[in-house]
């Protein structure tokens, strides 16, 4: 039997119908707030494309980003993404080891030049490269080499996007973000500690279906998931508006579900989709459990004072990562031009990102 050429053929072999794909596309367009009319185009785009080669590089990280995406304890609808992509290299998940693993990465790069996607979790040490190496190669070198001919680099988690906990003062390893290493390749930042799995899978599905990255915010994050603050969409907001605040974790206000602002909630300055998508298949999210938002998707959240002090007392001005606006623009423009080499250019025109900016060297 011949190898399936497209995702659609491969799904058919596995007994997953086009109707199931349409259901998946309806769900992704919904969580990404795309017009419902794009559902069929997304399903068609995914079905008609080749499986996307993905190379996952792990730098200074804790594996929670991988755990968030795979959630091995309970398969969900977005696990279909693993049928759409070919995960050609992932140090924690791949069976191959040593030279074989490195050969798999190089082969995937060669076979899919300009069309593979690199996912990075973890920050990259520049202080002493020896802090984090793979097969004797420094993270920064492997990332530069792998990103050079990638369609896009997706930085997942607050370590890859902002430097993360390894960068916490005094930053002993000289940790930096992906955007401070990668040049001339589009970067999509999906921050969070860990990031919401649907934000990762939805973004990948969008790139796969349309050959375009979704619209990004000024920090290079998909607006669909990072366009609103937690506070904007929080179900406790009516209590905030009425000035009803819990003063301790066990007082009457806490029991009545009042706003957690005075207990240190960072929801007003945090942009993420926890309040709408929630966690663990929509089961709950931090504020719903009675704990304020830590602000884990924002730059430097780890160094912005106590998690338990109300905002004015604990928050320094929001740090902006280097040339973040430009990151978004580079991502938008460069991916569009690379994708134009593929058959996806027609569908890609449907989701043109708004921003465009010059390429910026961030090192």
């Amino acid at each position, binding site marked *: 039997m011949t190898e399936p050429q497209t995702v*659609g053929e491969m799904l*058919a072999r*596995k*007994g*997953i*119908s*086009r*109707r*199931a794909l*349409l*259901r*998946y596309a*309806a*769900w992704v*367009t*919904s969580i990404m*707030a795309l017009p*419902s*009319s794009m*559902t*069929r185009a997304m399903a068609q785009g995914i*079905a008609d494309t080749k499986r996307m080669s993905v190379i996952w590089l792990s730098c200074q990280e804790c594996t929670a980003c991988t755990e968030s995406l795979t959630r091995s304890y*309970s*398969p*969900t*609808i977005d696990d*279909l993404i693993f049928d759409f992509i070919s995960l050609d290299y992932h140090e924690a998940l791949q069976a191959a080891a040593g030279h074989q693993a490195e050969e798999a990465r190089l082969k995937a790069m060669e076979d899919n030049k300009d069309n593979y996607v690199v996912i990075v979790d973890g920050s990259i040490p520049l202080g002493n490269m020896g802090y984090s190496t793979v097969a004797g190669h420094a993270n920064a070198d492997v990332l530069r080499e792998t990103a050079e001919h990638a369609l896009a680099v997706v930085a997942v988690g607050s370590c890859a996007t902002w430097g993360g906990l390894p960068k916490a003062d005094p930053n002993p390893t000289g940790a930096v973000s992906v955007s401070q290493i990668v040049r001339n390749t589009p970067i999509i930042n999906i921050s969070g500690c860990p990031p919401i799995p649907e934000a990762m899978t939805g973004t990948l599905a969008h790139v796969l279906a349309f050959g375009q990255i979704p619209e990004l915010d000024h920090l290079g994050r998909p607006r669909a998931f990072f366009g609103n603050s937690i506070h904007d969409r929080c179900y406790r907001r009516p209590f905030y508006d009425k000035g009803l605040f819990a003063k301790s974790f066990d007082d009457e206000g806490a029991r009545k579900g009042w706003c957690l602002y005075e207990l240190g909630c960072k929801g007003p300055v945090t942009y993420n989709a926890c309040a709408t998508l929630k966690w663990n*298949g*929509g089961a709950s999210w931090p504020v719903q459990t009675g704990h304020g938002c830590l602000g884990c998707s924002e730059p430097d959240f780890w160094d912005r004072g106590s998690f338990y002090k109300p905002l004015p007392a604990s928050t320094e001005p929001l740090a902006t990562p280097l040339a973040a606006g430009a990151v978004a623009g580079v991502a938008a423009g460069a991916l569009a031009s690379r994708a134009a080499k593929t058959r996806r250019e027609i569908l890609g025109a449907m989701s043109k990102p708004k921003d465009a900016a010059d390429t910026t060297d961030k090192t």
Partner: protein
Amino acid sequence: MSLAPDKETTDGFIQAILAELATRLAELASTGIEAQIDLRSLPMDPPKRAALDAKLGKGDVTATIADRAGRTEVFETRYAGVWRLAHYDMHDTLLMEEIAIAPVPDILRADPTDMAEAAARLGAELALDTKKGHAND
């Protein structure tokens, strides 16, 4: 039956959805242009949702799509061409609900690729049966 308008269906939000539906349905009837409304994205508390469902009611077509990746329940409302769809994942968790304004919701139509594959498969099965028939002659 009371002719007094239901308090919930006179709610401005529900009225706005119904007005949108009426416009889209008229457009479908005259031009064939289909539309969808994603109910997941609309902030509706349970009483409002119940009021909308009560107003739309159930028509005479119901369908279930069940496959390895989940399930979709579809029914036509009391208004021809206005359909309610609910999509569930493989654990029966509700993913999203939508209203489709269409002669038939897209997800119910057989896909051209699937039909071509089915035609080829049926043809091959027939050829095999004929061959077997000849062998038994």
